[in-house]
């Protein structure tokens, strides 16, 4: 109980975010606003009482008001500067992700091409045992490449520089294509994938590449987080203005206390880490942000050890 009380107090304390961000007190916008509020109230009261009791000298009252106004102006300036610094830090972080992911691409390309040449057998005969290791190297360069691409996408989303095309797309056909692509993974994981689409589903106006990425992310998660064997059921329905896409699995689910973090970037659920070490924690963040740009919505319901159901909506082409 005292723990809870402490938590409530902490959330009421305006200085908590500044402590979290590492901003010193004299630059903490929350603190400065509070200080300004207190000063303004104090000034009103002081001016009032001075004016009432010493009405004989309005010059002093005017002087005090001027001085106080000047102090408030300085405070204002500091607050604006502090916000600038925070905004600047956020921009630098996005820039940093962008530069790092670009810089990682060149060495990765070198690795990938060298590896391809090595494993092609053009440089000499390859032993069976060596092939296995080439395969490991290939899979891991692929993983690194995917991660770098996700990072680049995140930095583009955050910089507001993610151009989306507007194409007429049949979500049913697109989903069928992706299920076919995931067939080997589904079979290897002993997972059955089922799709239900109504016959005359209206088309959507969206970017096909990104929509594919969204469906892939959701299907990949559904399959990956099924322990042993299981089933994934996809349902697509048309509403008046939107198409509704739902994907249900009977996998490990998401623990209740972690559900609120699920769309945050780099978040990975604790129970998932036990089964799958692979994964960047960026897929669902990207999914949510792109759907937002497309005018859609995304959500889920989940029970630990029972499975998860993710859904999204996307506007119908009118």
């Amino acid at each position, binding site marked *: 109980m005292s723990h809870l009380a402490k938590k409530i107090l902490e959330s009421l304390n305006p200085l908590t975010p500044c402590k979290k961000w590492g901003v010193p007190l004299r630059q903490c916008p929350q603190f400065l606003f509070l200080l300004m509020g207190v000063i303004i109230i104090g000034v009103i009261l002081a001016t009032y009482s001075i004016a009432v009791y010493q009405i004989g000298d309005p010059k002093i009252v005017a002087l005090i008001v001027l001085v106080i106004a000047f102090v408030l102006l300085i405070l204002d300036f500091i607050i604006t500067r502090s916000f600038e610094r925070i905004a600047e830090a956020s921009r630098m972080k996005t820039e940093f992700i962008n530069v790092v992911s*670009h810089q990682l*691409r*060149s060495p990765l*390309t*070198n690795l990938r*091409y*060298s590896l*391809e*040449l090595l494993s*092609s057998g*053009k*440089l000499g005969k390859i032993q069976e045992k060596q092939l296995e290791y080439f395969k490991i190297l290939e899979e891991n360069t692929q993983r690194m*490449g995917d991660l770098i*691409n996700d990072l680049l996408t995140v930095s583009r989303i955050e910089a507001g520089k993610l*151009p989306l095309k507007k194409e007429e797309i049949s979500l049913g056909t697109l989903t069928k294509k992706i299920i076919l692509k995931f067939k080997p993974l589904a079979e290897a994981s002993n997972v059955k994938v089922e799709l239900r689409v109504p016959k005359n589903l209206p088309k959507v106006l969206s970017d096909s590449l990104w929509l594919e990425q969204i469906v892939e992310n959701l299907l990949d998660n559904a399959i990956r987080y099924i322990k042993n064997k299981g089933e994934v059921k996809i349902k697509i329905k048309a509403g008046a203005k939107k198409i509704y896409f739902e994907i249900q699995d009977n996998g490990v689910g998401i623990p209740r206390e972690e559900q609120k973090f699920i769309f945050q970037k780099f978040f990975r659920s604790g129970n998932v880490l036990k089964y799958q070490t692979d994964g960047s924690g960026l897929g669902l963040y990207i999914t949510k942000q792109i759907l937002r740009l497309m005018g859609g919505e995304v959500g889920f319901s989940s029970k630990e050890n029972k499975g998860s159901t993710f859904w999204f909506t996307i506007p119908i082409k009118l």
Partner: protein
Amino acid sequence: MAKQQDTSNGVKKILFVEDESALQKTFGDILKQEGYEVVSALDGEVGLKLAKTQSPDLILLDLILPKMDGFEVLEKLKEVPETKDIPVIILTNMGRMEEIGKALELGAKTYLVKANYTLQEVVEKVKQALE
């Protein structure tokens, strides 16, 4: 004399402008195996100079280069009569719409993003361009 004629008649010459020496090596090896002669340039200035003196049949050009970037090299190649008809394939990791559009507008024949092509696929594109 006879030997010189042989090289100019039979073997196609490719100029590869790329500052990553690892890529120079991999592409150099595979293109030589495919029977091409490869001339390497590690920066834009040398690339432009070699394009004029070596008269290659094809140029593989990266965009991010020391001294002179790929766009500038491409622009200068297209300004001069002796190099303006040499087909140029852009091979780079920059893959934004503006960059692709700009390179094609400047006269590049093909634009390949490294992350999306395997070594073998790039070699196929080179073969197609030389046919």
